[in-house]
């Protein structure tokens, strides 16, 4: 019995050692030998590390130039002149293109130019002024599509490339890093910008921000202006792909982005405000204004009310409250917990649809 057990364990150990030895020898041979480098290393590692050419090749064909064809009202029969407006990114083989709303908003007829020289006239599928996004569509075969990876989230310090058509010079690639993520407040609370120092100029708007793999990570939208001074100052913004993609799907489905509206303005409570208004706690959103025709007014919400909960969940700031409201389907009724003159109340509000202001 004992002998059997020794034999059994010994057999296993010996076979195990032999197999391991063979594998290790083979592995070290492979690691040192040329065979290993042929099998395990990509062919041109040296060059691909020192250049973004590969990433550019993947993404650049899908970035298009956008022109407006303006027709002279006095000479309607003359063929119009093409005027450079900005850039756009082909998002699908069906020909859907994302760009900025401000790029195309005053164009009569939009012409899309691909990098291979093809030109298409396009129609506007829908626009969302709040996020400054528009979706265009072209009909064409073999359209290059921007590589997407919705799961890779950019981090501060990542190297990025901006692709666009600044000053209508022709396609241009510029390089920088992600300077910040989650910037709010450029024009509305819905935006969640990426900030980059890659050079973005007039005409880059609507173009692509890609990572070093060539995946699309944002739609370039605006350059920070110093005292009305145009030109790049190393502070530029990009709409993250995830947000842009979801807006695109909504625009394709409904032709617009349907958002809920409460009809209030306000601010997150600060310790100073809590003292002035004699609030019990430093939390919630203090209402400063109520739209007289909005859902909040109909539910008797007044200025100086403090909203502390939305559907039983705490609201840490005004933007977060607006985000929750925007995501709520118009017509549905929600419960807000408010504090008025020190007393808590529960108020039922029927959320309305936010009107879209296309002139902004």
């Amino acid at each position: 019995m004992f002998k059997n057990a020794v034999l059994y364990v010994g057999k296993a150990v010996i076979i195990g050692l032999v197999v391991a030895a063979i594998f290790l020898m083979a592995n070290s041979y492979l690691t040192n030998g040329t065979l290993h480098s042929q099998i395990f290393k990509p062919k041109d590692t040296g060059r691909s590390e020192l250049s973004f050419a590969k990433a550019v090749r993947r993404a650049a064909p899908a970035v298009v130039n956008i022109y407006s064809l303006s027709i002279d009202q006095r000479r309607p029969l003359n063929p119009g002149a093409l005027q450079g407006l900005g850039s756009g990114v082909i998002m699908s083989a069906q020909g859907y293109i994302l760009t900025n709303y401000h790029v195309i908003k005053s164009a009569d007829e939009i012409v899309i130019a691909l990098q291979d020289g093809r030109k298409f006239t396009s129609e506007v599928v829908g626009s969302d002024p709040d996020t400054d996004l528009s979706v265009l569509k072209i009909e064409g075969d073999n359209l290059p599509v921007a590589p997407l990876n919705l799961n890779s989230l950019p981090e501060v310090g990542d190297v990025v490339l901006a692709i666009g058509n600044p000053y209508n010079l022709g396609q241009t690639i510029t390089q920088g890093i992600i300077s910040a993520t989650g910037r709010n407040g450029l024009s509305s609370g819905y935006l969640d910008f990426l900030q980059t120092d890659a050079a973005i100029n007039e005409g880059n708007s609507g173009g692509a921000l890609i990572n070093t793999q060539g995946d699309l990570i944002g739609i370039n939208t605006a350059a920070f202006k110093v005292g009305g001074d145009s030109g790049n100052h190393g502070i530029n913004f990009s709409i993250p792909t995830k947000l842009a993609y979801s807006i695109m799907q909504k625009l394709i489905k409904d032709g617009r982005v349907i958002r809920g509206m409460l009809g209030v303005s306000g601010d997150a409570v600060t310790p100073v405000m809590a003292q002035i208004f004699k609030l019990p706690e430093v939390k919630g959103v203090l209402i400063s204004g109520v739209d007289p025709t909005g859902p909040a007014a109909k539910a008797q919400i007044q200025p100086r009310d403090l909203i502390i909960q939305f559907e039983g969940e705490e609201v840490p700031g005004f933007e977060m409250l607006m985000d929750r409201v925007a995501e709520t389907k118009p017509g549905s009724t929600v419960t807000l917990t408010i504090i008025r003159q020190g007393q808590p109340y529960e108020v039922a509000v029927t959320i309305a649809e936010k009107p879209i202001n296309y002139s902004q």
Partner: protein
Amino acid sequence: MKTKISLLSAAILSATLTMMPATSHAAIPQTVNGQSMPSLAPMLERTTPAVVSVAVSGTHVSKQRVPDVFRYFFGPNAPQEQVREKPFRGLGSGVIIDAKEGYIVTNNHVIEGADDIKIGLHDGREVDAKLIGADADSDIALLQIKAKNLTEIKSSNSDQLRVGDFTVAIGNPFGLGQTVTSGIVSALGRSGLGIEMLENFIQTDAAINSGNSGGALVNLNGELIGINTAIVGPNGGNVGIGFAIPANMVHNLIDQIIEHGEVRRGVLGISGRDLDNQLAEAFGLDTQHGGFVNEVMPDSAAEKGGIKAGDIITSINGRKIKTFQELRAKIATLGAGAKVTLGFIRDGDEETTKVTLGEANQNKEATAGAVHRMLAGASLENTKQGVKISAVAQGSPAAQNGLLEGDIIVGVNRTKVKNLKTLKKILKDQSGTAALKIRRGESQLYLVLR
């Protein structure tokens, strides 16, 4: 059963043993040249001594006609023109490309009109420079200094650049002293900007400012890829759009300057335009890039090479070209006499041909003199109506015979002239006097060559 278990435990044991060294392999950090932190410093230590500052001074001379009123006061001996002199100073950058000969390359616009050019070397020395030659159309100038212990910069083949490659700009912006900025290649073959006559720029987002002109654009190996020349900036400063003249183009020009003291521009002898959507559609082409040939000049390099109107030139020496301007800039800077392989599309088929580039200007005048000795000094050009006199040199036989710029020769004696070829043929048989039928503006006249 036991065998199965023993084999299983053997497999587990061997797997455990082999996993251990495997993890230690993965722990070794991936380094580049033994350096864990990437830095451009080692490359720049070798490269920056080759980039110099160029300080120029001179006087701008502007002539102004003296008003007749003053001439009345000062009498008939008063000067007709008043010469105004305005001293100026300028600052730019330059690149040492040949340490032994002391050759420095810079932009023509840096040294244009300068009486005095001083080179500031990286080690603090200041040396006077001599202008060897310059080419305004491509904005390149070659200087020479006499100094020892110079550092030169090697050039890389700029035709192999790709969009996305790293770039480093070295220069002397705003006269601050040597400054290094980094970026990538934003675009290649950029033309149509209206900055120079001949444009075929590398575009980069490395910061380039006033004073960087003439400085070096290098790759990560410290090899020259271009000469920084211009920027697009709405407020005069850098916005991430800079332009450099490719190293290969620079060398083509410099070689000619060293050999002849000037650039002898190569001529293909075609006129044309960019291939665009409509043209490509009309000709049923897949490609949208190339130079469309409208017209081929008689006896030109292109004609000898078999190029015909309607061909689409798609490559030069195996390198694809996008626009007609790019083709023009490349041909012009290749130099007269250069042998060039052109790729072109005819009737949908791709073909290649070898041509030997002709020489600009001189060729035309030589032709005019050869056509008839009394036409010497005129530049002749083929047009639809006939042979156009595009220029007449002052005091030349052509001018003495009364030919004016803009005249179109439509006939000789009683024979109609269609182009240079027929004009040549007719005048060759005509030993004595020839009467040229000329269209000048709206009118027609005869000029008699004796």
